[in-house]
Every structure is written in C-alpha cells, then in structure tokens.
C-alpha cells in the first residue's frame, strides 16, 4: 500500500460492541467505509474507539472512551466490530512513551499522582487540553523525557517521579522462537509496521518457524522484517516433556525426539550443526526448542513429517516416513468376541474419542442402518453395535459432521482372530483392472 492506513492505530475486536453509556457523546456516521471511519476517528479530538456496524446497514459510531474505562461495557454483537485506539488500551510503552494514554496513576515508589489540572502540592506549567492527553492524574510524558511516562506526586516531599511503565518489547519475553508470543509489539526492529490486513492480530507473530517473531510491513520496499522482543533469560522447554515421543510421532512430528538418523531410503542424515554438504538456516542454537541434536530426524518447520538434510550432496532433504505414527486411538473401554455382532455393552465413543450419534436420529448423518432396518441388532441409544457384521468390530455413526461412521473404543477380547476365508476358484472381474499396454509406447515416444 502507498499510504499508511489509519486502521493501524486501532485494535479490532471481532463481534464486539462498546456500549454507549453517555448517548449524547456518540457521533454517528452512516454508509462510510471502515477506512474512512477510522480516519475520521483519528482526526477527531475526542474519539478513542468506534463501533463499525455492518448489518443491517453500515454505521460508524465514534466513542470518546475505550472498553477498559470505568462504567464502559463491551458486549457481544455479531453484526458489529469494535475498534479501540491502541494507545488507550496498551499497558506498555513504545519508545519514550510520549504516546502513552493508559490509566496508570501511581509512581514507581507507589505515590499517587497529582491531577494535571491542579497546581497543588506542586505548581507546574502544564495545562490539560483535548490534544495533549494530560487527563486526570494519569502518568504521561509531555516533555519526551527518556525515563518515559511520569507525573507530579501528591507527596509534598517529592515533586515528580517516573511511573516505571514497561517497554512493550520487554513486557513479554519470548521463549524459543516466539511461536507463542501474543504481546503487543506491533512494529519491526526498525519501526516499520504491519499492513492492515487483520488488525486484531497485527502484532508481531511467528507463524512459520522463523527464528523470531516478525511481521509484514507497510513499507513497499520491505515485505517482512523481524521484530525486537526480549528473549527470556532461562530457556524452559516450551512443551512439557510428556508431549515428546521417541519411538513414533504424532501429527506432523514436531515433538518427535527419537534417534532415527537416516531417511526412509536408508541415506544417513547430515548433522544439524553442520553446513555441508547442505547449507541451511536451521542452526541448533537459533531453534533451541526443536531438538536439533546430532543428525536425528526432526521437524523444525511444520513440514508433513520429521525430515533431515541428507548426507548426499545431490539430495538436499528427505522425509523419515519409516518412523511409525503413534496410534492416536484412545484407550479401549471394553472388549468384544468374534466380530462383535453380539456386543451389547454401553460404550458410546469412537476410537478417536468422538461421541456416537444416536441410531434413531438422522443428524448429523442419515442412518441407513437403524433400529427399523435392523430390529434384531439392539440399536439402542448411541451404543456401539455391529448390525452389519463388520469384520473390524462394533462401530457407530458419529456426531462429527465430517466423520460418517467409525469403529469404537473397544478392542477384541484376547486371542481371537477372524478366520481367513478362501474364496471359490475362478473369481471373475469385469469393468476393472483393464490396461492397454500398447498405449504406453505411443505416449512415451
């Protein structure tokens, strides 16, 4: 974008509305764009937040307070989004805090601040106005002092004192590469900002396994840049050890910490702390929580499965799909004999832990197999049953709209295997498995 969007100054709260407790101080503008609504609020002297109602018709409502003001109330409203000026809701400061408009009114030693309009106990030359933010007795930094926001104190012995409001970049530290960072830094190390694509999280984030949180910027010349956020001094393991696996992997394998160190095709992996034969950005010290030890298969970047750089110069990376996937079935709660056709227990959960759908209803799945069609199968409630003699055991329709049916959290009683059936000779296949080998030659030519 060529111009900086006014929306960058606001934090969006989707589906929220700030209730006007003084209707006479609300300004209504209809049928204007979101960008225009934000611009006018920024330009208006006492606008600090606005409701942008988009249904049934577009209305922009400017408000002179934010949600954390006394008497203010924020309620749910799916037809409206709330935008609040960040400076009024931020609890930390950026730079020297000249823009700070928060509500702290005590100094670092706990003294109460003197009202800015008052000249007692300390006389001074500052006069509150609608633009300088010298409101009530809140800490402010009208003279750009490097110590940050300060105030005159009500203690006759102490004229003024800093309020010690933290820097946003220090307020929340990041562990590992900051994947879990949810703080309020919203600009890059050189001060560039995030475009207005999605304001409620235009703060710095690390969604793609970069070394540190970053953001896209409004500088057309610079697409993205990392942000300056303090690293926590101690390095706790980001996930509890219990989520780590060593002889199988779950999901994409980010928590796999086993010692397989060759690819599926048996090629030894390259050490992570080596740059040959393949140069790469995954330094163990930069990705300290990804377990990049030795040359073990790992998944530091959200790939499909654990992988590694290979020791073959002509093959840069390869997946380690020979590592088993952990069974993600829940603990079996019962057992069945044979194929479970006669099971009459009360388990009503699938092997993935999804609740079963009742046999007698048709939502979310239409039940072609139901108590009417199978009166003998005891299809009561949503208990697991095997009305069609499925060789893989009792099953049920599920309450997950995406999973029509699934097998249940029931295992076969010990020591039973369904028999192998030897079909009659001369099984005939038609309309399948036909191939015209002559065709290949013509195509490859």
């Amino acid at each position, binding site marked *: 974008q060529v111009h900086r969007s006014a929306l960058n100054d606001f934090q969006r709260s989707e589906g929220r509305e700030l209730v006007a407790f003084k209707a006479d101080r609300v300004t209504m503008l209809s049928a204007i764009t979101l960008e225009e609504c934000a611009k006018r609020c920024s330009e208006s002297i006492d606008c600090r937040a606005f409701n942008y109602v988009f249904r049934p018709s577009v209305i922009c409502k400017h408000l002179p307070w934010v949600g954390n003001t006394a008497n203010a109330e924020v309620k749910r409203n799916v037809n409206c989004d709330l935008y609040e000026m960040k400076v009024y809701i931020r609890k930390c400061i950026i730079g020297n805090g000249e823009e700070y408009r928060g509500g702290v009114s005590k100094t670092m030693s706990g003294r109460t601040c003197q009202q800015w309009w008052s000249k007692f106990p300390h006389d001074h030359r500052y006069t509150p106005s609608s633009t300088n933010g010298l409101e009530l007795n809140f800490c402010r930094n009208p003279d750009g002092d490097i110590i940050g926001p300060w105030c005159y104190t009500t203690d006759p012995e102490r004229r003024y004192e800093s309020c010690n409001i933290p820097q946003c970049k220090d307020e929340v530290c990041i562990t590992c590469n900051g994947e879990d960072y949810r703080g309020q830094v919203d600009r890059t190390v050189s001060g560039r900002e995030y475009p207005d694509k999605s304001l409620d999280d235009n703060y710095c984030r690390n969604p*793609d*396994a*970069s070394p540190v949180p970053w953001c896209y910027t409004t500088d057309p010349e610079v*697409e993205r840049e990392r942000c300056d956020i303090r690293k926590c001094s101690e390095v706790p393991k980001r996930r509890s050890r219990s989520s780590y696996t060593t002889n199988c992997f779950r*999901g*994409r394998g980010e928590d796999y910490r086993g010692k397989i160190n060759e*690819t*599926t*095709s*048996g090629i030894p992996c390259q050490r992570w702390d080596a740059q040959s034969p393949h*140069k*790469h*950005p995954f330094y163990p010290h*930069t990705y300290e929580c990804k377990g990049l030890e030795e040359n073990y298969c790992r998944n530091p*970047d*959200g*790939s*499909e*499965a654990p992988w590694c750089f290979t020791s073959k110069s002509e093959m*840069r*990376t*390869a*997946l380690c*799909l*020979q590592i088993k*996937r952990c*069974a*993600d*079935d829940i603990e079996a709660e019962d057992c069945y004999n044979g194929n479970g056709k006669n099971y009459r227990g009360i388990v009503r959960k699938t*092997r*993935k832990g999804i609740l079963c759908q009742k046999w007698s209803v048709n939502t979310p799945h239409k039940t072609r197999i139901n108590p009417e069609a199978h009166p003998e199968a005891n299809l009561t409630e949503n208990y697991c049953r095997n009305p069609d003699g*499925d*060789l*893989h*055991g009792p099953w049920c329709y599920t309450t997950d709209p*995406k*999973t*029509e*049916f699934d*097998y249940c959290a029931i295992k076969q009683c010990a020591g039973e*295997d*369904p*028999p*192998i*059936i*030897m*079909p009659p000779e001369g*099984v005939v*296949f038609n*309309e*399948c*498995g*036909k*191939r*015209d*080998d002559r*065709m*290949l030659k013509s*195509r*490859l030519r």
Partner: protein
Amino acid sequence: IVGGTPGNSPWTVSLRDRSVPFLILSILSLTLFIFTVADEMIFVPVDRKGKHFCGGSLVNSKWVISTKQCFSSCYVDLTGYAAIMGTVFRDPKEGEAGTQSIALSKIVCGPSESHLVLLQLETPAEFNERVSQICLPPERYIVPEGTACEIAGWGETKGTGDETVLNVAQMQVQSNSECNQYFKGRVKQNEMCTTSFFGGVGACEKDYGGPLACQNSDCWVLEGVIIPMRRCGHQGQPNIFIRVSMYVDWIKKVMEM
C-alpha cells in the same frame, strides 16, 4: 521405485500437497534459493503448484486408496490437496491431453492397524484408456504364492531410473511363512510380501500409498498397498505391503455409506 522401468498404470494416481509457504518451499527447493548474511533471507518465489508426495489407487471413480502414513491425521484439512491421473509424467504440463487433476474432499481412516485411508475425489474421475479403476480382491482372499504382480510410482529411484515418469517394477507374491523367515516372524496376517530380486527392486520414498497390482487372467487386482519400509530396494529383502483383501469390507462400506 527402485529397479523399475517406465510403464503404464491407469489406476495409479499422484497425490499432490498444497503449495507450501515461502520459507519451506525455498528451503526444500533445489533452485532459486538466495541466502544473505546477517540471517535475513530474501525469498524468491518458485512455482506454486502442489508437489507429488505419495501414491494412491483408484478403487472407483470417486475414491482413491492410499496409506495413512502420508497424512498427519484423520482430520487433516485437505484444502489444496489433489490427485493427478491419466499421465505418466510426474509433473505434467498445464493442459496436457488426458491429464485429470481432481481435488480431494474427504479422508476416511481405515480400521486400526490397516494404515489405510480412503480419499474422496471432489468430482468423479473420467474413465478412459488412460484412467481406470483397479479391481478389489474378494474379502480376506489370500493371493497365491508366485502370482505375478507389479508396483508403480513416481517416487525415489535411487539412481536406477527417471523420476519424472511413472516407473513400474515386476515381482511375485511370496508366502507370509517364507517372508517371515527373513523378517523373523514380524509379518502379520494383514500384511503380505513379494519376492526380492538380487538386483534390489522395491518401492521407495514418495511411492507410499501406491498399488501392488497382481494379475488375475486379463485383469489387475489391488492386492497390496505400499507402506514405508526401512531401506528401499535393498538386495535380498522382500517387500511388505498391507493386504487389501482384509479391508475390502471396510472399503465397500465407506463407498456405500
């Protein structure tokens, strides 16, 4: 496929992932990756079509069977995933005649221990001389030892072939009892084996999920699904597959429901 030759397998499909974010794509791509000092990176976009990551077989016009090992979960978001068929090329050119690319719309995981998944196509595949469905064996059928079979895929050849075209390798069924001599009894009833050639023939990376098709008079029957093994085409090592006949009832049930 290690030890194979270019061939034709109209039921074999190439499963494509969604195009991946810059960072991953740039790192895993062998070309156009530019690296600067002071750990900042400049990303240069490379082509954004999904890449071949696993194989599959058409068991009817709307369903493809593959292995769960290729997917991170039974609830994975398949947006952007697709199946390509009707071509022998791993990366067919835009608009190549006969090629069909169909989005995947649903994944259904098989019974536990089957390591199988069924993938529903968003629209039915059009059957012609390039695209056809493979036969399913009778339930719990044990294909006789010595039956002629073949595997097919666009995966790693370990230098024995051209990975840009579909490779096919021939092999014969080996009984589980004989196979268990090599694998010390680890081969289960829901698995099956094929003989190993001394030259080393077998499936490898990115072939997983593809077919082991065995001949039955003039038809080809899907007797096995390729699953990852340690080492590919290792000399003297039999190949292990999931025995499809153990799960034909589940396959039919999913397709019917």
